């Protein structure tokens, strides 16, 4: 009976996040906590809702407004489990990812979506913010022992900074840190030239990093 109810609530929670229904999300999280469901499990259910809408976004079945409310519901649900979540161990070894928008560019929506998608996929993400100079990317990659540096560039002048960042991080980190780029100004051709990963959207970033791990990248 308990397991059946937990299974039902799990689906309710995922759907609440997909719909961006904050009230239903919070109620369901509280019910699951009362039933003794682990915070890590609840996090995975919340995340499943976000990833679902991320997939829809990638397939042009949902757009920014739909994703904004999904992320809102996710964050409200997350706030209820965060204290417990910190005390529970993560499954497997998460990647350490330093992420930011390159110097000369302050667009952050795409970067924030990628950050959220990577976090809900279980990785440790260190968000540096926007307008990040190459030296700061390199210093933070070193400080956090980053497996991956993720860079977003919407406007093309940012590409010069992006190239410098790859160079600076490689000087400091050698081949211990890999790169993923995205944003309107970037392209698969640029990624190929720099021998780094390219993501066309947030869910593609998750998939590319998943492939990277499967190939023994970290």
């Amino acid at each position, binding site marked *: 009976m308990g397991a059946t109810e937990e299974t039902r609530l799990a689906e309710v929670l995922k759907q609440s996040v997909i719909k961006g229904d904050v009230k239903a999300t919070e109620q369901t999280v509280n019910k699951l906590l009362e039933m003794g469901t682990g915070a890590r499990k609840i996090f995975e259910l919340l995340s499943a809702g976000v990833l679902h809408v991320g997939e829809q976004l990638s397939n042009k079945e949902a757009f920014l*407004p739909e994703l904004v409310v999904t992320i809102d519901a996710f964050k409200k649900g997350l706030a209820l489990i965060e204290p417990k979540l910190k005390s529970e161990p993560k499954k497997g070894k998460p990647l350490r990812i330093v992420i930011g928008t390159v110097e000369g560019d302050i667009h952050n929506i795409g970067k924030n979506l990628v950050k959220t998608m990577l976090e809900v996929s279980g990785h440790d993400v260190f968000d540096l913010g926007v307008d990040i100079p190459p030296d700061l990317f390199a210093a933070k990659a070193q400080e956090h022992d980053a497996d991956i540096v993720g860079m977003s560039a919407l406007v093309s*002048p940012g590409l010069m900074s992006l190239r410098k960042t790859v160079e600076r991080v490689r000087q400091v980190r050698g081949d211990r840190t890999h790169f993923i780029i995205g944003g309107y100004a970037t392209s698969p051709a640029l990624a190929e030239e720099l021998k780094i990963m390219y993501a066309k959207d947030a869910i593609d970033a998750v998939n590319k990093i998943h492939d990277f791990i499967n190939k023994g990248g970290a």
Partner: protein
Amino acid sequence: MSDFPKEEMSTFDRVSATFRGEPTDRVCIGWLGRKETGLGLPQVTVADVVRDKSGVLLHKGIKAITEKFKPDMISVTTYTTVEAVAIGTKDKYFKDQLPAPVDYVIKSPEDLDRVHIPDPRVDGDLPCIYNALRKVVRDFGNHYPIGAGTVGPFSVGARIRGLWDISFDIMRRPWFAHDVVKFATEACINIIEGWQSAGATGFASGAGSETVLSPEHFRQFCVPYERQYLQAAKKMGFLSYARHICSGPSADLVVDEMAKFGLDEMPTLVWGYYKDAETMAQKKKFFAEFSPRVAVGGTFRASDQLAFWSPSEIEAEVKRLLDVCYPGGKYVHVADCCIPPATPLENIEAFVISAKKYRPK
């Protein structure tokens, strides 16, 4: 210049014939993006130009580019947050780059009562455009159609409220999103009244904020306000409308919705992001069902192909594009979006000259 075929039409005749789909002596060349930045004025930064309220530097930049490349249209613009900044949004400048908003003026419904509709002659950086426009009209008005515009009601709304927050409002409190876009519509109308009084004959609209919306939200939050803006422009006496489709997740879905703006009101150019040349040619036929005077242009990626390719690569791509899109007219040769400030002049030259030399097979 001897290898140029003789030009037999004035720019006005060429532009008119292009919109009607009649034969022209050569391809109609549209405006050349961000004239204010570095292209015509080396050693001058973006901030120097767009914050110069006299418009002298912007005028000089446009003059330099117009005299060098001799396009068929002139657009007097600076950057895509200028309307929002005039309303109160704060922006940040970067060296040799376009500015971007950092703090949005509308944080709550009450803020809509605190802001005022901007006057393009005095508010924010709008006087730069107003004053430059008057000078450009004085110098070139007898030879070129001259346009100026705004990023349009929804995109101004997104730039005073913030794209993330207006997206949230659309889902949770749509009345507020509507109020923001209504205010933005009034602002856009007031701004182009100023452009009209300064001598502009064409007006413009469109930016990237609206291409993050689903077609349904586009129909609700963009179409009715754009119609109002277009109808107001017609009443003011504007003669043409340049409607931009900026790249975004739903750009290829909402483009068809633009037919609902009322494209038969005046000659219209729907330009910007199209997936490829073939799609643009297909949309040209689609828009023709709504009005006999709609042209298309764009698809050539300003931030990638134009900024980073070699001149010979650009020439080859222009030829391929024109083979697909020029037949039947109703095609204006423009890049898909604003030209990045650091784009090499020789690349712009390749883009323009190869189109001017082009003749159909």
